[in-house]
């Protein structure tokens, strides 16, 4: 990669990609199958999804490794059969292949890291060392697969996010982005365990994150206020990836009905509020990324 991601995010708004789950269902992911196994069993379909996001104008493509820590894979029947390192390394290579296939320049492979599925005390029995170990294994494999940056996302406990970030720092000096997931309560924005945007910004900045922000849980209209709150509390570059409304049942499938133009309109307001990078989470697909791309290109 010739261009440095750290430089780009300080110069212009960067577009990440959107949701993976509904794309996988549309591509035929069956019951009892987990998304991560397709990195090994259906690489062509994963590449096609990445390619669709590239064609829509996404500049950062996330690996299909949201649940690919050893801890989380070990919790499901399908996941138990997979080698965590192999899955992560393969997933990174698939994004690289998609990039090469599209001849796309100045695009980035983001090694995606989601929660490990265990909780810290008093809810669960996760220890900092357990979290660090499983994230280190994942980060090391993603690094070996050739990612350009790491994206730690959907974290509902700041402590777990910090362990993931430290694990990345142990194995790589590439950029590390951290997104927590917040809900909007009557008293403001909080993670599941009560972390505030202010606390998250202070801690993650001190831990050396290159970019921070939030994804999932909130729909695009409710994400705008969270952007402002983050911007009031940090000078770091900010990334936000909201959900596309809530799903409805149609022909036995979950479908999301928020119009992409509506989502892009909210995204424009997130950028005005201080977001340096944007994208989508659950329910978004390449149409949403295209709508944001059109908006970004139009304002140049």
């Amino acid at each position, binding site marked *: 990669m010739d261009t440095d991601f750290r430089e780009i995010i300080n110069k212009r708004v960067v577009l990440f990609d959107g949701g993976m789950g509904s794309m996988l269902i549309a591509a035929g992911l069956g019951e009892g199958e987990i998304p991560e196994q397709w990195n090994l069993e259906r690489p062509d379909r994963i590449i096609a999804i990445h390619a669709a996001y590239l064609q829509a104008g996404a500049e950062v493509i996330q690996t299909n490794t949201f649940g690919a820590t050893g801890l989380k894979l070990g919790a499901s029947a399908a996941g138990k059969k997979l080698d965590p390192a192999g899955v992560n390394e393969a997933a990174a290579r698939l994004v690289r292949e998609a990039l090469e296939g599209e001849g796309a320049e100045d695009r980035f492979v983001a090694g995606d890291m989601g929660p490990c599925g265990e909780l810290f005390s008093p809810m669960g029995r996760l220890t900092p060392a357990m979290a660090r170990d499983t994230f280190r294994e994942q980060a090391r494999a993603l690094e070996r697969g050739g990612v350009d940056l790491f994206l730690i996302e959907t974290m509902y406990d700041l402590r777990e996010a910090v362990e993931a970030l430290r694990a990345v720092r142990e194995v790589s000096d590439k950029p590390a982005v951290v997104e927590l997931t917040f809900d909007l309560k009557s008293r403001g924005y909080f993670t599941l365990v009560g972390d505030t945007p202010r606390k998250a910004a202070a801690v993650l900045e001190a831990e050396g994150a290159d970019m921070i922000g939030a994804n999932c849980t909130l729909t695009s209209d409710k994400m705008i206020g969270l952007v402002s709150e983050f911007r009031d509390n940090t000078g770091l570059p900010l990334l936000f990836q909201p959900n596309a409304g809530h799903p409805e049942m149609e022909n036995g499938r979950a479908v999301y009905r928020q119009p992409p133009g509506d989502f892009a309109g909210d995204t424009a307001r997130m950028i005005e509020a201080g977001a340096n990078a944007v994208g989508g989470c*659950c329910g978004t697909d390449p149409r949403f990324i295209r709508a944001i791309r059109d908006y970004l290109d139009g304002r140049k």
Partner: protein
Amino acid sequence: MIEHLKKCAQAVLEGDDRQAEKLARLTLDKDYPLLEVIDKGFVKGIREVGRLWEEGTLFLPELVMGAEAMKKAMAILQPALESGGHEQTKAGLVVIGTIEGDIHDIGKTLVATMLSANGFGILDLGADVPVQRFVDEAEGKKADCIAISALLTTTMPGQKKVIEELDRRSLRDRIKVIVGGAPCDEKWALDIGADGYAGDAVAAVALAGRVIGG
């Protein structure tokens, strides 16, 4: 006595399980009226925990600790309640689990804990639960309600399949179905023909009470 009730509520509110156990034993030693201590003491505490959770003053750790303190106290009071000839105040039996293909059981376990803390009988089937098993267990145990969690866009249609299976076995009018999980909402519950949706464990307690009672 009023002081004792306040202390019971406070122990749950503070998630102090040792204090809750101590107060439960004291209740028996002093022969305080059991139902009143439960209702105006411990239950009052867990309701306050729920209220503070909903407004964003308490969070998951406090909710879990409050529910645990409640369960510890009830484990001591329940046998006395039953041997004392009191009607066992079970609010209903709920079969709960996360749907097949989905291993996310944090929210589901929390809902189970809160339901149990609020007097519901609970059969927790865990995560990755097949449609047939939900219905088999609910039918076999004569459950009042099935609570199904789904956290993924890919797995949430399974909630509807449970309802279809209940229909097929002509059990739907006897067994209520409530749903939850990050991507679900009221509209989703309506779409798939469930009896209701709850956005968190506190709302789930109110919802279960409503659908079973109604």
